[in-house]
């Protein structure tokens, strides 16, 4: 029977061409080089296409991420055959798959959002419709439209992978491609539409003067709770969801949800667990800003404005994604030698340290080479764009190009695949309830709570000592 790309990522063996950390370092240097070259061509305000306006560049960047998720996670590389994936040179494969992802991307944005929705449904998806309003300049018409389109992307980039990671493709997991892919695509797109209408549509509705009371809820229902009418409140938790999905899928190996034996209980626990963890990040990262910069003041601008603080929560969250993916893609999800919970904890610590280091380095230096501006809170300072752009480069490299050239792809044998399944099952079964596990769990909870309050206590002085941007 003809096989497409189902199980391709799990059933490929990436063999290092050199020993030790050399392949990871070579890949890092190579991908950073590609990142910088493409950043200059497409995004950099000093470069060629200058799409970092910022919303236009962000829109394409964000949807490109989703295109790759659709192609790999939802459609399992369909219509490409397994043999083609296994035998084609990574450079050729990378070029063809990347081109396809970009073609779908442009068709979706220009055809579906601007052409269909923007002309026949919601005017704010099409800049030309917005420009018909008195006083709206072409630049801001494009920015508003890009904002709406990219907000849809933010939601879809959480829900599309979440259905695979949390719901394990159910109830269509046994369908063949492309039926499975289309089923998941339709459902996740439908859910994204609902979430969009109850989170971002009211934000777009009050962009107009007077507020569009007849078409959107104004002022938005979250005003009192979030201390702002801005939809950035939702950007924050949705970004956290996007990041947590990938933490669960990569460095956490879906732990601890994979301990739940009942299929539907596990799926629901994982889906809503991702939201729960994301909300914890959402609230804590806001609190962290209050601790370091002081309380937000409604109505002000920049770093003290609640709307920017919520946006910055999402920006901080994205810094966690980069080291987590690096650990998984280029460090073979190191470490693996301990029990699953201990491995997960150690990887989380590594990711946390990496995220903090990346955050500091980014804000200290990015304005020197990315064409962004010095400071945290500039309206056009969007670390999400370079971070997701880098993630996109890594996805092309890891998913489409099998980490070439530092790794070589070899299909696993049937025995190797079976051994993987057995080992994975054993790792899960290794974690079971015993009295000592219960004692450890209780002690761990206490340590976690203590660690939280120590962090809260130390954060203001640690932040002041680091002094990321002198003068701030």
């Amino acid at each position, binding site marked *: 029977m003809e096989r497409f790309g189902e199980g391709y990522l799990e059933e490929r063996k990436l063999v290092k061409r050199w020993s030790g950390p050399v392949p990871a370092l070579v890949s890092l240097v190579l991908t950073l080089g590609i990142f910088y070259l493409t950043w200059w061509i497409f995004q950099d*305000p*000093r470069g060629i296409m*200058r799409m970092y*306006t*910022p919303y236009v560049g962000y829109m394409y960047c964000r949807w490109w991420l989703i295109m790759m998720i659709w192609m790999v996670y939802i459609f399992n590389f369909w219509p490409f055959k397994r043999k083609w994936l296994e035998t084609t040179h990574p450079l050729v494969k990378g070029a063809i798959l990347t081109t396809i992802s970009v073609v779908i991307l442009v068709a979706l944005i220009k055809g579906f959002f601007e052409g269909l929705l923007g002309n026949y449904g919601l005017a704010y998806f099409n800049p030309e419709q917005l420009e018909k309003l008195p*006083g*709206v*300049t072409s*630049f*801001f018409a494009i*920015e508003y439209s890009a904002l709406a389109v990219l907000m849809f992307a933010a939601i879809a980039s959480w829900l599309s992978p979440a259905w695979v990671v949390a719901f394990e493709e159910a109830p269509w997991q046994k369908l063949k491609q492309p039926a499975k892919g289309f089923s998941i695509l339709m459902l996740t797109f439908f859910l994204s539409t609902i979430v969009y209408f109850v989170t971002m549509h009211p934000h777009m509705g009050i*962009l107009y*003067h007077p507020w569009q009371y007849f078409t959107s809820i104004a*002022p938005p229902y979250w005003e009192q709770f979030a201390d702002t*009418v*801005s*939809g950035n409140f939702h950007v924050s938790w949705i970004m956290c969801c996007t990041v947590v999905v990938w933490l669960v899928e990569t460095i956490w190996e879906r732990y*601890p949800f994979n301990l739940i034996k009942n299929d539907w209980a596990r799926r629901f626990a994982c889906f809503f667990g991702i939201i729960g963890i994301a*909300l*914890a990040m959402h*609230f*804590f990262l*806001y609190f962290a800003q209050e*601790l370091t910069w*002081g*309380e937000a*003041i*409604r*109505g*002000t*601008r*920049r770093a*003290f404005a609640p*709307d*920017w603080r919520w946006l910055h929560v999402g920006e901080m969250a994205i810094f966690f994604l980069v080291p987590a993916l690096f650990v998984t893609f280029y460090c073979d999800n190191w470490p693996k030698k301990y*029990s699953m*919970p201990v491995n*997960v*904890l150690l990887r*989380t610590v590594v990711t946390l340290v990496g995220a903090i280091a990346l955050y500091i380095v980014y804000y200290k230096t990015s304005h020197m080479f990315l064409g962004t*501006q*010095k*400071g945290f*809170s*500039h*309206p*056009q300072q969007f670390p999400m764009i370079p971070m997701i752009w880098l993630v996109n480069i890594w996805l092309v490299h890891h998913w489409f190009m099998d980490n070439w050239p530092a790794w070589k792809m070899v299909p696993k044998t049937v025995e190797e695949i079976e051994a993987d399944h057995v080992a994975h099952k054993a790792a899960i079964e*290794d974690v079971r309830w*015993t009295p000592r*596990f219960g004692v*450890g*769990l209780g*002690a*761990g909870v*206490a340590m*976690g*709570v203590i660690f*939280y*309050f120590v962090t809260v206590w130390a954060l203001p002085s640690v932040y002041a000592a680091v002094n990321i941007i002198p003068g*701030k």
Partner: protein
Amino acid sequence: MSDNMKRRDFLKGAATGVGVGLLGAMGLYSYSPMREGYFPETERKMTDIGTCRSVKVTNISETSWFENGVLMGDIKGAGGLLVNQYDYNWPPFGNGKGLGKGSYDEGIAKIKHLLPNRLEEAWDIIEANSVHPENAGGYAALVEVEEMDGNKRKFLLDVGWSYKWCDECFKREGIDKMLENKEIEALFFSHEHFDHFWGLPVALKYDPEITIYIPEGFYPEGLQYIKDCGHTGKLITVKSGLNKVIPGMASYVFAIPIICRVYGEQSLYFNVADKGLVSVTGCCHQGIIRFAETAYNEIKYENDKCHGIYGGLHISPFDDWDPKYDDLVISLGDYGFERIGCNHCTGVLCAKKFIAAGYPVVEGTAKFRSKDKAYLGNGDTITFG
């Protein structure tokens, strides 16, 4: 069960528990009212900057550019709001290579020999080499402070952009004569933006020795431009924070990034006897609420009251809108300002929203190319005290 097994089970439980405890605390505590116990009580510094009897502001020009669509078209064409302002190829640094291909060095080389005295000749060259020179206007204001003994002192806040437009405005308001007569004792730059700073030769034509105060954060091109314009007086770089100027007047520098690759903004505070705090701004990129909050935390002022505002409040300079601006419109009423004279980058739409919200906006006359009476326009004045 062996000890090793027991230890492994404990570790597995502990590793899991750390995550549960940490995430649980993050989720339940971080946005709860209990967290407010961690916020330090803000101790007001109550720095005494003295008092003055009154402050009068004359709007020399608030029309920094004349057509939003043209300016935003340039910005869009050149690559957006993050492009270095010296690269747009706007006047006076036109090099003839077109939009987005400018540079300070190439632009200034064409006109440096004519600065600051032969500005008409310089402008002819600029018009031939720059993108949309006809759209350039500028922001500048004359600030007259009446001291408690009745003595009046004059300061300039910014000098606009177009040499041609600014010279016309200076003559209209008599600024040229005041500079020639050394009646104006200093020029404060709010920030390095083109529309506030690039008209510098017009001021130096009449008084090249004038003392200039710039906020910390000017880029090398900006510092070089001050020299290339022929400035021979004292140049003072003001550090971030509060800086007393004369009794009743202080400037405050905010270390903030601004569009078109600019950093730092300086605004002015006045303590007007029996009235309260008056804030005068160039663009107020820091935000009027932060400006008022900073005053509350730093300065002692009459009646502990915010009395007035003048200037660009940088809310919707291109008549763009964002829900966060609604946060400002909703919140501004909490600060109790009694006189609001806004223009320039405030945005006409925002000024109208202020009026609709019942705020005490002092309306203007819409003369000399100012577009709407909701703004305190070109040639209009406002007095506090």
